[in-house]
């Protein structure tokens, strides 16, 4: 053991040396004269990184889309039935579709299969379960509707009024085509309406059918409801049947879940114009705030009463000896900031008689999208004949971005992809006036946000080393 002591000491020294040497293996600062002799760009931070920041006035216009009022844009698929009027005067109408298939098609055991007269149909009912606003007791009505393809807006004409003859061309009272001839209130969290017997019989017949391809499709709308915003679970259709079993009669309830539901927001037409010229956004109407950022050309602003002019982003880049072709965009971040509802700035569109001011409402999560193209009403609504027709581009683009909540004093977003694309188009000659468009829209339910101009845009370029 005594002979091992020197070797143990040696092993300890070796371990100490390994630890010491592993703690400093990076050279900082010193040695730059040698490195720069090989490649000056490797030590010259000023040359390797060109930082160009744009101020808020690089935004040369701010507005919202769509320009006009369009239920095409504000129709959304939903897990609930949403209807009523929100605080901004927008009216929401709901629609739900049902598709009933035979028991055999669903692979389920038949609750009733023999058909009349052995099993007899009592009736079919639609049951509502309230999600919220239980204190609201205004009555709503359900109207029969056609099934709607895609995201076709809810049809307000589903409500049809008829006039009872009061003699001499007058009406004693107006009646409408509401289902079951009654309203529902959801005041007690549960309400039901008896469906027309024709629908009940159709459901009953399809359920016991041996033809698995049979389908009973029907739909209802909640329109012309002007109470406060309500939200209800997708209602079930319950089919009541008396089944003969061993000489006795047993009541059976066949529960059919609601299918595809949607709602359409009919924007307050009195406010639409005011909203369209402001960076206003709403989760319900899907109105989207847009800021257009100018990338070239001198920009002017007023600073302390004196006009100040400075170059756009690409002009500034050129002043560093770089162009969109020989530079590499390394980093690009834009700050976005909302105007709180209680801010003095929010009074920029004051309420007129019978109108509501354009201001932020409930503020929650939102999505930010940066593009190098302006999406017009025609493009986003799929109304033009171009290749983009048929696509609700803004829907699709927003789906790929993640949401966040506003924070203090602003939020930040990277927009390298959009800026690169704009610069590529500019250098290829396909865009003479490149812009970046910032699209902002809340995603939190019933949220509306009025946005301030992005306070700053910060970019870093580096000379391209791809060649």
């Amino acid at each position, binding site marked *: 053991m005594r002979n091992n002591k020197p070797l143990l000491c040696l092993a300890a020294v070796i371990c100490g040396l390994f630890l010491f040497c592993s703690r400093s293996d990076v*050279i900082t600062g010193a040695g730059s004269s040698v490195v720069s002799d090989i490649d000056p760009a490797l030590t010259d931070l000023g040359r390797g990184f060109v930082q160009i920041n744009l101020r808020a006035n690089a935004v040369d216009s701010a507005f919202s889309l769509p320009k006009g009022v369009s239920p095409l844009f504000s129709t959304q698929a939903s897990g609930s039935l949403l209807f009523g009027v929100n605080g901004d005067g927008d009216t929401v109408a709901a629609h739900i579709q049902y598709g009933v298939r035979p028991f055999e098609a669903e692979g389920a055991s038949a609750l009733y299969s023999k058909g009349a007269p052995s099993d007899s149909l009592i009736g079919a009912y639609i049951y509502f379960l309230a999600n919220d606003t239980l204190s609201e007791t205004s009555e709503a009505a359900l109207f029969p509707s056609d099934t709607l393809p895609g995201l076709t807006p809810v049809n307000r004409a589903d409500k049809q009024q008829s006039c009872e003859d009061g003699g001499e061309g007058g009406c004693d009272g107006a009646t409408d085509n509401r289902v079951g001839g009654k309203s529902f209130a959801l005041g007690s969290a549960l309400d039901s309406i008896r469906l027309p017997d024709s629908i009940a019989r159709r459901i009953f017949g399809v359920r016991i059918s041996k033809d698995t391809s049979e389908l009973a499709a029907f739909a209802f709308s909640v329109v012309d409801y002007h109470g406060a915003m309500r939200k209800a679970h997708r209602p079930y259709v319950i089919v009541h049947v008396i089944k003969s079993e061993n000489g006795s009669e047993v009541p059976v309830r066949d529960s059919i879940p609601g299918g595809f539901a949607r709602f359409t927001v009919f924007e307050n037409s009195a406010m639409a114009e005011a909203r369209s010229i402001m960076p206003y956004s709403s989760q319900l109407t899907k109105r989207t705030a847009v800021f257009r950022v100018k990338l070239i050309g001198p920009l002017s602003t007023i600073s302390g009463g004196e006009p100040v002019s400075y170059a756009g982003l690409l002009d500034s880049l050129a002043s560093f000896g770089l162009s969109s072709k020989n530079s590499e965009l390394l*980093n690009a971040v834009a700050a976005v900031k909302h105007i709180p509802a209680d801010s003095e700035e929010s009074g920029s569109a004051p309420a007129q008689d019978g109108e509501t001011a354009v201001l932020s409402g409930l503020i929650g999560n939102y999505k930010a999208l940066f593009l190098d193209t302006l999406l017009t009403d025609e493009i986003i609504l799929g109304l033009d004949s171009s290749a983009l027709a048929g696509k609700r581009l803004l829907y699709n683009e927003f789906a790929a971005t993640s949401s966040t909540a506003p924070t203090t*004093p602003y939020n930040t977003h990277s927009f390298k992809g959009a800026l690169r694309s704009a610069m590529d188009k500019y250098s290829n000659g396909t865009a003479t006036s490149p812009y970046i468009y910032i699209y902002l829209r809340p995603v939190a339910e019933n949220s509306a946000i009025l946005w301030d101009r992005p306070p700053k845009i910060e970019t870093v370029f580096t000379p391209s080393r791809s060649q």
Partner: protein
Amino acid sequence: MKKAVFTIASFCAALSINAQSPLGLSYPLGVPDIAVTGAAAAMGGGGTALAEEYLGTSLNPANAAIGERSAFSALVSFDATGISDNGKSSMVSGYMPKLLSLIIPIGKAGNIGFSMQQRYDANLNFYTREARKIDSITTSTSTIELHRNGGLTAWQAGWAYRFANGIGVGLQYERFYFKRDTREVFESVFTYELASGANPYRASTTENATANIASDGVRFGMQVPVHEKVTLGFAGEYILPGTNNGSATREYRRSDTSAALSDTSYSFSADLPPYMNIGAAYKLDDHWLFTADAYTTLWEYYENDLEPTLAEADRCFGISVGARFIPAANVLSSKYWEKIHYSAGARYATLPNNKAYDRASEYALTLGAGLPIPNDGGMVDIVFSFGKRSDPRYDGYGENIVKIQLGLNGGRDWFQKDASKNY
């Protein structure tokens, strides 16, 4: 215990953190370094003429002719470099296995030897960073990183024979591998101290480049006793010209895109420079030994299609002198400290900078102690080296180098008698 030390050394060698020098950027294959056994390193890196098993074949292939014994040597070097550059300074350290050597007897036909030498280091981790406060919550940080890893490694296998008159000759086949991986990173980070927390946006471009060269060579060595106490030695190597023996790749990437913006690969031709060394050893008595060596690298024969500018390197030469003292050599009952091999040496060498400039050079002073492992277990060498490296091309630039080198040597008679049969 020997096994434990060897295991630790092997493990750490596998996790080597490379020694570095920015000067290696401007030299064709990196910074040259001596790759000899601990015994030779302690004497300033010399010993071409010295016929001794603990010198292995690192200096002279003829030294493999050690008779009917096998010998193993290894050296790992711990380097600490203080870099001063016009008022700025930085300290960097690393360790690297420099040498492995094995000699095996083949009876009357002489000995065969195998070795690995790490001859040039092209390692560097360099970065420049600046953090700038844009406003009270925004910071913009720019960083440039340069990482290089690699060097020249020589793998050797050869034969040696010593004649009855003491003349030893050796011949080796050599395979050279040069490898250099380079990564250059330009990184920008915007950091925002928002109410929701720090929010950094990190983006970078990365350029990765590799260069590899493989060449074959032959090395001849000779040790000639010219006097009872004096031996002369010579060794020289010639590397065969290469055709398309090099390969290089380069790719350029952005951190936010998966596809490379640029991705190329190509081949090139490179001829590595010949090298030769001569030396003399004077053994005054059993206590004292003196060595003197001179060596040169003929960079004028170096060619490289990939980097023609770097190929214009100046011919290098170097000299080293050393001495060794053993207080009680061959005295069986001596104390342990009397058995230690005390060595000292000095070395001066020029560096392969461009011949258009004044010569770059380095020098080093060495002190070493060879610690015998009891029961003929071999020798552990501990070598301290202090030196300086400078290049007149860079005013105000210098490197102060401290090395601690650990050598492990072992040997045994190949045809031992079974001691148990003596009883």
